[in-house]
C-alpha cells in the first residue's frame, strides 16, 4: 500500500502535466500551439543540459553546440539526402553524441569555472565552423526548407509528434537519473573526492554523462529544425547555451521536472513580453535576479521546502520493521 502511495505521489505531477499537454491544442489558438511546441522542445533541451548542471554539478555553457549539431544533422539529412524525419532523430542523437564525446573528453578534465569556460569555448568553435562552412552548412544563411512530412505539416500534428518524442526522451532521462548511474552523478556533484575513494573513475563517468546529455540536446535540436523549417548558426551560439541555464535555474535544477517548468516560464515570458517591448532580455534578466535572490533552488526548490515531493521515506519504510526511529529533516 505504501509503495502504491509512493508511486502515485511521485508520478502525479508528470502525469498531470502530460494530461494538460495532451488537451492544450484543443483549447488554444495556433499561435499558442507553436509556443507550446517550443516549450516542450526547449524543455527537453534544458532537461538534457541539467544532467550536467543539476545532477553532475558542473555548469556547461556550450550545450547549444550539441543542440545545433542535432538540428543541422536533421536539416542536412532532410534537405540534401531526403531522409525521413523519423530516421533523422536517432542520427542527430548519434552525431551530437559523437561531438560531445570528442569535446567532452577535454572538458571533463576540468571542474568549476574552467569547465564552464572550456565548454563555452568549444561551443563557440562549433558555432564558427558552422558559420564559416558555406558549402556544407550554408554559413550565416543557415539551411532553409527543412519541411516536416505532410502528415506533420499542421501545427497540432507537429506538436503531438514533438510531445511523443519529448515524452519518450524525458522518460529515458528519468530512468537514467534514478538509476545507479544517475545516483553516481549526484554523488560526484556532492563529493567528487569521496566518489573517487569508493572506486569510481570520476572522469570517465562525467564523460559518459556529457555524451548522454549531448545526445538528448541533439534530439531536441533535431525536433527544432523541422518545427522552424530552417536552422541557423545562432542555434549553437553561447547565448543559446544560456537559455537552458536560465530554464534550469528558474524551474529548479534539483528536481527532474525543474528545467521543463523553467522552459514553460521562460518561453511564456518571451512570448508575452516580446509582444509589448523589444527589451525582452532586460525582463528576463530581472526575472533571473529575482529567482536567484528569492528562490535559490528555483520554483521546485520553494515547493520542496514546503514539504512536497518527499517520497523516499515512503519507499524505504517497511524494509526494516523494527526500526521506526527515523530522524526526519
Amino acid at each position, binding site marked *: 500500500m505504501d509503495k502504491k502511495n509512493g508511486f502515485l505521489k511521485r508520478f502525479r505531477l508528470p502525469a498531470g502535466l502530460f494530461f494538460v499537454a495532451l488537451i492544450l491544442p484543443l483549447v488554444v489558438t495556433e499561435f499558442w500551439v507553436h509556443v507550446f511546441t517550443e516549450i516542450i522542445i526547449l524543455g527537453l533541451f534544458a532537461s538534457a543540459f541539467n544532467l550536467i548542471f543539476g545532477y553532475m554539478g558542473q555548469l556547461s555553457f556550450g550545450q547549444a553546440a550539441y543542440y545545433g549539431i542535432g538540428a543541422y544533422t536533421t536539416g542536412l539529412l532532410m534537405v540534401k539526402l531526403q531522409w525521413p524525419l523519423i530516421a533523422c532523430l536517432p542520427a542527430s542523437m548519434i552525431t551530437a553524441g559523437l561531438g560531445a564525446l570528442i569535446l567532452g573528453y577535454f572538458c571533463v578534465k576540468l571542474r568549476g569555472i574552467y569547465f564552464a569556460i572550456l565548454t563555452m569555448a568549444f561551443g563557440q568553435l562549433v558555432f564558427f565552423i558552422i558559420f564559416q562552412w558555406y558549402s556544407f552548412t550554408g554559413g550565416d544563411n543557415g539551411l532553409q526548407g527543412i519541411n516536416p512530412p505532410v502528415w506533420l505539416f499542421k501545427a497540432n500534428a507537429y506538436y503531438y509528434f514533438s510531445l511523443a518524442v519529448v515524452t519518450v526522451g524525458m522518460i529515458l532521462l528519468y530512468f537514467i537519473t534514478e538509476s545507479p548511474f544517475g545516483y553516481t552523478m549526484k554523488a560526484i556533484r556532492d563529493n567528487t573526492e569521496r566518489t573517487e575513494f569508493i572506486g569510481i573513475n570520476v572522469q570517465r563517468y562525467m564523460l559518459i554523462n556529457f555524451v548522454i546529455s549531448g545526445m538528448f540536446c541533439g534530439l531536441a535540436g533535431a525536433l527544432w529544425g523541422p518545427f522552424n523549417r530552417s536552422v541557423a548558426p545562432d542555434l549553437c551560439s553561447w547565448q543559446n547555451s544560456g537559455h537552458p541555464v536560465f530554464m534550469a535555474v528558474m524551474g529548479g535544477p534539483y528536481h527532474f521536472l525543474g528545467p521543463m517548468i523553467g522552459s514553460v516560464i521562460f518561453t511564456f515570458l518571451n512570448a508575452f513580453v516580446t509582444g509589448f517591448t523589444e527589451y525582452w532580455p532586460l525582463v528576463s534578466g530581472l526575472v533571473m535576479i529575482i529567482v536567484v535572490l528569492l528562490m535559490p533552488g528555483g520554483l521546485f526548490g520553494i515547493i520542496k521546502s514546503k514539504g512536497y515531493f518527499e517520497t*523516499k521515506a515512503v519507499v524505504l519504510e517497511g524494509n526494516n520493521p523494527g526500526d521506526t526511529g527515523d530522524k526526519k529533516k
Partner: protein
Amino acid sequence: MNDDVILKTDHLSKSFFKYQVLTDVNYQLNRGQIAAIIGPNGAGKSTFFNLVTGYHAVSGGNVYFRGKEITNWARHKIARIGITRAFQVSNIYPKLTTYENVRQSILAQQKRTLNFFTPAERLAKNETLSLLETTGLSGFRNTEAGILSQGDKKKLELALALASKPDLLLLDEPTAGMSSEETHETMQLVKRLNKDIGLSILFTEHDISVIFGYAQKLSVLHQGVLVAEGTPEEVRQNKEAQACYLGEEI
C-alpha cells in the same frame, strides 16, 4: 615480499615545494593487523595516508600493496584493489540520505554503477540496511547526511569505507568528535571487523586510551620521520617516542 605483509612503503617521501613533510618512511603492515601511526599535529600522519591512497603524488620512494607496486596509482584504482579510507574531516555525500550514501558505496563495490535503467532504490537494499545496522545508523537512514552529528558523520564514513569491502582500511582519527560512548562503540566495531573478517586496519589517533587499547603495533612519526616502532609496550618504553609525543609518563 613476505605474503603476510599487506602494506609496505619503501623510502616514502613527500615534499611540498621546499618543505619536506615525509622523509624516507619505511613502513610495513601485516595482514590482519590493527596498527596505529601516532605523532603530534603536523608529523605527517595524514600525508602518509594521502600518499598510500593516491590523494597526493609521491615525491620519492614506493608503495606496495599485497606485494604489488601501487605508487602514484589513481585514487579509484587504489580503492578498487582493496584500500579504502576514512578522512580526518568526514567526507560523505551531504545532500544524499544516509541510506543513499551507503548504497552508493555498495553499488560501486558491486560494479553496478553503469546500470542505466534499473531504479537504484531497488538495488542493494539488504546489504545497505545491514551495514547501517552494523554501524548503528539505522535510525538515521532517511536523514540527509549533511545534518548528522559529527560523530554520526564519522560512523557514516566508516560505513562508506566498509561498503567497499576493503582488505585494508585506513582510518584518519576515526573517533574525532565522538563522545566517549561513541568512541568505545566505534573502536569495538573496528576490533570486531578485524577479528571476524581479518580486515587489516591502520589508524591515526590522538586519544591515548584508544591507541593503547586497540593497536597491536604502533609507529611514531615526528616531523615526517619514523622515529619509533613496535608493540604498544615497546613504544611506551622508547625514549625517543616519549620525547616526541608521549610525554614523560603515561
